[in-house]
């Protein structure tokens, strides 16, 4: 029996697999690793810079260049796909309006535009005239309240107003003897109600005069709503500020989506690279998975290819500067890298816009024609956006995953 095969367990792969399974299709998700969602901020960016700060992302989506991944999709479909994901995950995990950007503080004290966020984060929105206290934990690494508060205080809010921010510290080890714990260790400790109470009491004691208390994003991994417990004790809104990986909010989204996939009957093959494929008459017949012991052929009705881009190795540059797509050898928007990387590190690099072009259904094309009638691309593989600069990677992933799944469900191929 042929199944729909989704390759990749990042946001795009998870969304495509979920959407297909919910339509009653048999789906197998194959991924080499655990996907990148657990490394993310745990928010959904749609479009943050174009190139100036974006306040209304759908308006900016409407205005993208014709070779941008959003251009064939349009603001309505982008909004609908983001809203679908938000509603799938529910208001304990994701809230917001696809038409409005939030401006949330980062762990460096800069201000990051994003669209959908976790309810534990939204009170952190940087608004002129507000007073913030940033609370660090002595035994938690990589979160310095002086750095966060200092940078916030010297940065005008997106609305033009001035903000006030002060640092404070608490001293509360998550595990005895560990002076340099990761956010994950704290999140696991805060899943315990008693430890969360002690944490909340310590924060309340140092919060001082302020409107909002900013905390590192460690407020519980499996127990959602720890932030409410802390907020109630502190007597003020609190907001999580995402840390560098391991990212607790990102892991929350990954685990929630994976749970929904399995409940929808998706087969999940973990830790295995797809190494080859069989095709006939312009259609993929199967993909080859490097399972333990030997290769397995998985018969494919359709394939949604969501392997990411350069960061995952799906796209690679060899020592001659040749750019190639690893698995299907798909045609790319450029095949030679040397001219695409500029001398200025901070300037745009066209290399990172390289990827596959697709037709209106999301199928990689060679010229105008689909390479395979039943192969769809989603997420970071698609050409035309430097995602981290624009803050557009999540929105592109979700919108292109939904496009691919809906084309399959609708019988496009």
């Amino acid at each position, binding site marked *: *029996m042929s*199944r729909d095969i989704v390759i990749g367990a990042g946001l795009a792969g998870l969304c495509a697999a979920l959407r297909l399974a919910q339509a009653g299709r048999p789906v*197998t998700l194959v*991924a*080499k*690793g*655990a*996907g*990148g969602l*657990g*490394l993310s901020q745990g928010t959904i960016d749609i479009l943050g810079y174009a190139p100036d700060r974006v306040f209304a992302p759908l308006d900016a989506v409407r205005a993208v260049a014709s070779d941008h991944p959003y251009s064939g999709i349009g603001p309505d479909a982008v909004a609908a796909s983001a809203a679908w994901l938000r509603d799938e995950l529910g208001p304990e995990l994701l809230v917001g309006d696809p038409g409005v950007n939030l401006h949330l503080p980062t762990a460096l004290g800069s201000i990051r535009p994003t669209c959908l966020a976790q309810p534990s984060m939204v009170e952190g929105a940087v608004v002129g005239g507000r007073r913030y206290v940033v609370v660090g934990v002595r035994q938690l690494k990589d979160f310095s309240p002086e750095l966060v508060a200092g940078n916030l205080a010297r940065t005008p809010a997106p609305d033009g107003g001035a903000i006030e921010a002060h640092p404070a510290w608490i001293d509360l080890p998550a*595990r*005895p*003897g*560990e002076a340099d714990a*990761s956010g*994950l260790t704290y999140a*696991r400790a805060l899943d315990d109600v008693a430890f969360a109470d002690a944490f909340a009491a310590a924060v309340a004691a140092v919060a001082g005069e302020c409107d909002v208390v900013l905390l590192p994003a460690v407020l519980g991994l499996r127990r959602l709503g720890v932030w409410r417990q802390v907020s109630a004790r502190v007597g003020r809104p609190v907001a999580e500020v995402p840390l560098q*990986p*391991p990212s607790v909010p990102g*892991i929350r989204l990954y685990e929630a989506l994976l*749970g929904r996939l*399995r409940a929808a*009957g998706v*087969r*999940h*093959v*973990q*830790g*295995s*690279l797809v190494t080859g494929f069989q095709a006939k008459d312009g259609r993929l017949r199967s993909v080859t*998975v*490097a*399972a*333990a*012991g*030997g290769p*397995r052929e998985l*018969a494919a009705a359709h394939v949604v290819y969501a392997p990411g881009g350069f960061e*995952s*190795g799906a796209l690679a540059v060899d020592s001659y500067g040749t750019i190639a797509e690893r698995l299907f050898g798909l045609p790319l928007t450029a095949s030679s890298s040397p001219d695409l990387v500029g001398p200025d590190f901070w300037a745009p690099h066209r290399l990172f816009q390289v990827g596959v072009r697709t037709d209106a259904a999301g199928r990689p094309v060679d010229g105008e024609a689909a390479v395979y009638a039943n192969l769809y691309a989603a997420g970071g593989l698609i050409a035309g956006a430097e995602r981290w600069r624009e803050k557009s990677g999540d929105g592109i992933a979700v919108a292109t995953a939904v496009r691919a799944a809906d084309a399959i469900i609708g019988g496009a191929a």
Partner: protein
Amino acid sequence: MSKDEAKRLRERLNNELNRATLDHCVKCTICEQSCPVSAVTPLFSGPKFVGPQAERFRDGESVDHSVDYCSSCGTCSVVCPQGVKVAELNSLARAVMKAEHGIPVRDRLITQTTLMGRAMTPLAPVANAVLGNSAARRVMELAVGVAASAPMPTAHGQTLRGWLKKRPAPTKAPTRGPVIFFHGCAGAFFETEAAKAAIEVLEHLGFEVIVPEQGCCGLAEQSNGLFAQASDAVLKLVGQLRAPGTAAPVVSVAGSCGGMLKHEAHEILGLDDPDLADVGRRTRDISEFLMELYDAGELPTDFAPIPLRVPYHQPCQVRSQGMGMPAADLLRLIPELEVVESNAVCCGIAGTYGLKKEKYEIAQAVGKPLFDLVLELNEGLAACDTETCRWQIAKSTGVKTVHPIQLVHQAYGLGRLPGLG
């Protein structure tokens, strides 16, 4: 442990191609997110720290000794998106450390699974009484370091081989080809019910089931750093499994041991043996085998309903075989059987890890979310593919834990699990 062995292992660690994968590590922390051991104890500093972070900078020195607290569940390699052989290298680094610093007698004893089975079977009531006696277990803990509360296998008066000899010959002539049945040590001595159920299901489906004489796969020795002994054991087993022929599939009812044949003996012991590769290519977990039949439209699904909610746990060493979760998919074909996946990384026992007195508490903490789930949701039964994991779940929850094939066996009308209507 000879000096030569230590030197040989050190050379492997320093020179193996796998070592180059350490440089693929981008420090993303995905392995740290998923490690079940560092999540519950500061005694293990985590797969990334001891592996790609520390190991690649060492030159002739043994790794951070906390690598001894790695349970070898293999999860770090499964989740790594960059293909770093974290678990394989950390297992090898631990073997080097043990070879250079000595292996406790306890670790040599608990790996002798076949010997234990042979010795205990004729003495089953006595052996069970001793292992069930808390004073005797406390003496064992003090003398050799096997935790007094850790799960121990139950001996049976009859081995699988004894059953095979005494049972009436199958009445149905085979309608499909032969399969070579791999039952593992537990299937031979301690967990014979799962092995019998698997044989009867395969025969019911029309296969000719060949059960060659077979020894231990060496997995327990491997995870205790006894690589030379493990290599001897697995190569001997490979010869035994090849004896009946080199065409038929090898179907395994021993979840983790199947993984030893498929990849661990090659990846961790470093065995580059064509016969091992041949057996690994032909080896299928029993659920994987049946789901391949199902996908090919060749599995009858005339299952009788089993109105039951059953928590199912996929062991870490079954997950790492890259075949998805075939047991859960298979059980879902049984009408009215509600399968609840544990979503737990590991039950804690990790072969022999949780038997050791200094690791027992860690193993229990690793397994706690699983035990809580089983306790909350079970209706008298849990399911799991690997023997020691079943003992761990049963011992820690008091809930009878069976191999998934035993539910399939009942659903085909071939028998009834005790206590199920």
